[in-house]
């Protein structure tokens, strides 16, 4: 679906290049911080497949993020398995399985029901980890070590090394971007956008709308699981808060702030929001107050997010010149 103009392609390529070169001059703090931002960008991008393209507003997306994280914690702490080629697929499969179950129940509904049900079912997953001491309860779990990837005793990637980890995250982000671009350009992607625009007509055309929605839901959930895997590996920590609805609201905020219905919007949103949070936190301990007001202002004033600003500005100047359609 996204058919990029030459200018946006150049911008995207430039952005990737900047991110790729950043560790050459960025200091330690920001290399770590940017890794975290890119993880949230990936997380938000996966949600955008549902919200921006398919028209499914999920308020429970953090469940898949959190399950990805707990899969890492469970395998490494409980089973002692640290090989990346086991841990990563396990995280993806757990997230996909949960997404299949939650998706199967929630896509029977639409609109506000869908929002409330995804929220409630994600909350159920939250309580599953929160209530059981086996999973560390409310305190969460410290993960004993990071996943390892070695062939014949030689480490291929050292995720403890912050620069290598940074590039691993960047690779995942670019990979997800490419995957979703291809997916959205395929007939499948066109069908999703069609469902968003007019579900009844798609059904009348003979599309099995429910199956399309479910597949989109599982793909989005799996990518969120990948983000959860990366976050658990970064922080060596898994907490129920990863699955909580504040996390779901936060990632939804990133999507809308950046601009939904574009793949690069969530990336911009993640950088702007997380850098801003960091800045607010240096100003005051009460930065959540500022963030709350900011979120309310975005909802009221910036429906198309940052990615939609050029279009809005163009529309405004066109009106001023007197040849716009308003």
């Amino acid at each position, binding site marked *: 679906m996204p058919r990029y103009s030459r200018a946006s392609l150049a911008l995207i390529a430039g952005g990737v290049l900047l991110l790729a070169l950043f560790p050459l001059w960025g200091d330690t703090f920001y290399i770590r911080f940017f890794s975290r931002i890119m993880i949230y960008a990936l997380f938000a991008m996966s949600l955008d497949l549902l919200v921006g393209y398919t028209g499914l507003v999920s308020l429970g997306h953090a469940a898949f993020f959190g399950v990805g994280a707990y899969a890492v914690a469970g395998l490494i702490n409980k089973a002692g398995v640290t090989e990346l080629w086991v841990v990563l697929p396990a995280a993806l499969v757990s997230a996909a399985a949960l997404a299949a179950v939650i998706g199967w129940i929630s896509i029977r509904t639409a609109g506000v029901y869908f929002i409330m049900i995804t929220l409630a079912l994600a909350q159920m997953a939250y309580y599953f980890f929160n209530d059981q001491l086996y999973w560390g309860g409310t305190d969460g779990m410290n993960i004993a070590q990071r996943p390892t990837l070695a062939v014949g005793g030689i480490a291929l990637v050292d995720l403890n090394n912050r620069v290598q980890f940074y590039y691993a995250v960047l690779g995942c982000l670019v990979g997800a971007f490419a995957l979703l671009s291809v997916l959205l350009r395929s007939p499948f992607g066109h069908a999703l956008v069609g469902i968003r625009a007019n579900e009844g007509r798609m059904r009348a055309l003979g599309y099995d709308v429910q199956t399309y929605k479910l597949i989109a839901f599982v793909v989005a959930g799996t990518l969120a699981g990948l983000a959860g895997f990366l976050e658990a590996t970064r922080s060596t920590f898994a907490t129920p808060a990863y699955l909580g609805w504040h996390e779901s609201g936060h990632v939804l905020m990133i999507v809308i702030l950046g601009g939904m219905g574009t793949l690069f919007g969530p990336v911009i949103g993640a950088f702007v929001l997380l850098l801003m949070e960091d800045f607010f936190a240096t100003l005051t301990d009460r930065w959540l107050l500022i963030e709350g007001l900011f*979120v309310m202002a975005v909802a009221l004033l910036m429906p198309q997010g940052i990615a939609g600003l050029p279009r809005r500005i163009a529309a405004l100047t066109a009106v001023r010149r007197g040849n716009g359609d308003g």
Partner: protein
Amino acid sequence: MSYFLIQTLNGVQYGFLLFLVASGLTLIFGIMGVINLAHGAFYMVGAYLAWWLAERTGSLFLAVVLALPVTVLLGLLIERLGIRHLYERDHLYQVLFTYGLILVLNEAQRVLFGNDVHSVAPPQWLAGTIRLSEAQTYPVYRLFISVACVAVGAALYLLIQRTRLGMVIRAGSTHREMVAALGFDIARLFMAVFGLGAALAAFAGMIAAPVSTVYPGMGDNILILSFVVVVIGGIGSIKGAFAGAMLVGVADTFGRVLLPAGAGVTVYAVMALVLLWRPQGLFGRTL
């Protein structure tokens, strides 16, 4: 046996309380088409105001009388400044706006009242207990909560179904333009509905304060449970909110007693089962 009776009474009492909160939520959605995530935050505001004013006046009753107008005003203000501009927009923006509102209200609570847990004493004349058997007693205040919820619920029903104002409100929910054309000020009407919804949640928080204590984040739990109630009952249906609240109240109470390890999950399992059977909820209109 009397143990079973006490748990049932607790479940029903909790159900009544949930009904009060959920009815405000479902009213705001059913009539205005707005999904309000900050509904639980109003519950929290009510509880904190009740605690703070009861400390100062020495009477919970007086505290409720003083706090109610404040919460109505807060609701009216929020509707006027924010919600009003989101009626025509996608639910997504209502979710986002009210999510931001939760952050603000929760943080404001921490700034004003701190992170401590506070307990509130029930009024003297309700502080006693009733003897159920040789060994078991039941607090009078819990019975009072049920009675108060029933009274408010009945008043709400009469207001919506039996008065002229209720008739206009119901008409406004389905035929907004027509009602406006007949000379009613729809904007003011909706503002009043939002204020009423906010007050219902806040009132529930106030009367629940002696039982639940007052603590940070108390609104979040009740919000999610009210969502479950509303989804089970059917969005927009007061009758459904009542049925859903009873089901959730009893399921939650017995879940805690019978399955302590899965306590948090019971309610959601009930919801999932109901949805598999009736995706539109017990009393919802067909999707």
